[in-house]
């Protein structure tokens, strides 16, 4: 599961009103290179919940990867930033698309229900009595 996907998921256990963002617990994760596409990031960024993304990176013990506050568009999409090691856009790209959580769990912030992540696939299916 990529962090982009984590950013799009919510818990819908019966009775839970928001269920977002899910708390991430990862016991195993890895990274895989993906080609950076600045236009894709530009389209994605306004729809991303920055705080949830930052919380997810912290949960993976990567406190340095993203700042608490979202950098400005000018900074992220500055000329040539794509080619600069460690630039904002590269970090965002890395966080959203290159990190795969292989094993772990997603915890509903309201009910505490734990959704397991196995073999990189989050299992959001509800049991019979939770629907």
């Amino acid at each position, binding site marked *: *599961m*990529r962090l*982009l*996907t984590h*950013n*799009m*998921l*919510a818990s*819908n256990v019966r009775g839970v009103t928001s269920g*977002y963002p899910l708390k991430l617990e990862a016991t195993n994760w890895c990274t*895989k*290179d*993906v*080609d950076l*596409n600045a*236009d*894709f990031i530009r*389209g*994605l960024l306004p*729809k991303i*919940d920055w705080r949830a993304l930052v919380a997810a990176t912290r949960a993976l013990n990567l406190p340095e990867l993203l700042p608490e506050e979202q950098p400005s568009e000018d900074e992220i999409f500055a000329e040539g930033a794509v080619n600069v090691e460690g630039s904002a856009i590269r970090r965002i790209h890395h966080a959203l*698309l290159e990190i795969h959580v292989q094993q772990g769990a997603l915890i509903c912030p309201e009910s505490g229900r734990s959704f*397991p992540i*196995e*073999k*990189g*696939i*989050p*299992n*959001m*299916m*509800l*049991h*019979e*009595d939770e*629907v």
Partner: protein
Amino acid sequence: MWYLCVFYHRLLDYRRPEVESLAELFGGPGAGDAVEWRMPENHHEDSPFHLVRLPGDERFAAQVANRSLLVKGIYELWGHGTTYEELEKSIMEYPDERKLPHLTPESTFKIVVDTFGKVMSSQEQNEIMKSLTYIPFKGRVNLKKPEHKFFVIETDDYGSNNGLPPVMKRTIFFGREVGAADRHLLPMYQLKSRKYIGPTAMDAEMAFLMANQGLARPGKLVYDPFVGTGSILVAAAHFGAMTMGADIDIRVVRDGRGPDCNVWSNFEQVLAIHWLVRVVFLDLLLINYWLLVFNQILDAIICDPPYGVRAGGRKSGGRKILKGVKGPYTVPEAKRDNHIPSTAAYSLAECVHDLLHLAARMLVMGGRLVFFYPVLRGEDGSSNTQFPEHPCFKLICSCEQILSFRYSRVLLTMVKIAPYTEEIKKMAEEQHRDFRENHQKWLDEGNLHSAVFSPAELAPDGNSKFDRDSKPKYRGKYV
């Protein structure tokens, strides 16, 4: 500029929409609508020969043709006629400034004699090539890697033997190839060479056509809510799209058939073919279809919903009624961890309703929803069904593929044209309640399985009502 567009003689309904979608993909919004079509004189719409005007230069036409699956070739038409004399006259009249740049001494070329609905011996082909002396070819012949490929394409006019209604007159076309489909993809991706397939895995050609309809390309996010073995997303990933798939059945997506035989291994195959692209983007989820929270994030939803003929839909919320226990089954605490929840039958109407609402909420404006919808055919072979509608979507094309005498499936391509408002959301919730309360009624109504598989009724004279010979047929079992 007008080109001659020759199609493969298959999947007739899918041919023009594919070209229009690819024009949109390479030409930007509106380019698909700007594509114009004409038929050559005395050709029926089912003929593989079409004339097309594309909004762009020759490079654009080449892009469209090279990415397509059904375009045998797009040609700059130099001349045509019903006889070789007429052809010569027509080619001579074609302006020299369009011809000469492709006939220079430095260039290399090759002439191909092609036919439709007839066979020609190589001797006859040679004679035709030799008869073209009135064209001043100055370049050198190169059969392996020519710069310019010229095509003489001849068709016959006898009867309805080509599988076409008898309205195609003998025509000879002469043109220069601008681009052609790369069908080498298909053997590489054919299902029989794929490690992990299921009973409803999508055929590779159809999956590529769906990916084209969904405008899959690098930087686009494509989602399949019924991912199964991933056969549709494999095609989208081949074109560089980021893909995301969900399914309700944990055994299909997580376990597959062992460590090297699952959805991931199918994607590794894309990687092997695509050695330049470093990673194929795929994320899988196990999900109750309407769970994603973020609005307007997906560029396309491409899927084949379960419509209950080969596989029925399932949704969350099944109830295991144990002996003597009524009401919802409560999972014992000790078994919760590895419990696979039971699911309930999912009627087609409810499933499509949910799909349209998910799409309305999740797609960006201008994003595309591409999915199959089953249609029962009438006794005369007609199939006029009302397709599903939604206030946020405009249907841009529907392509029928006939599956049996009883039913066909139609590939619907819809574009999101209006934002998802509170009002629409409320409407969706009301409809949803109705589905819950009248679960059985919807299940009975949408029961396609019995309509497709029940034995045919016999007419009073004892013969089957389905007269196999009376229906229009095309050559080739896939058409």
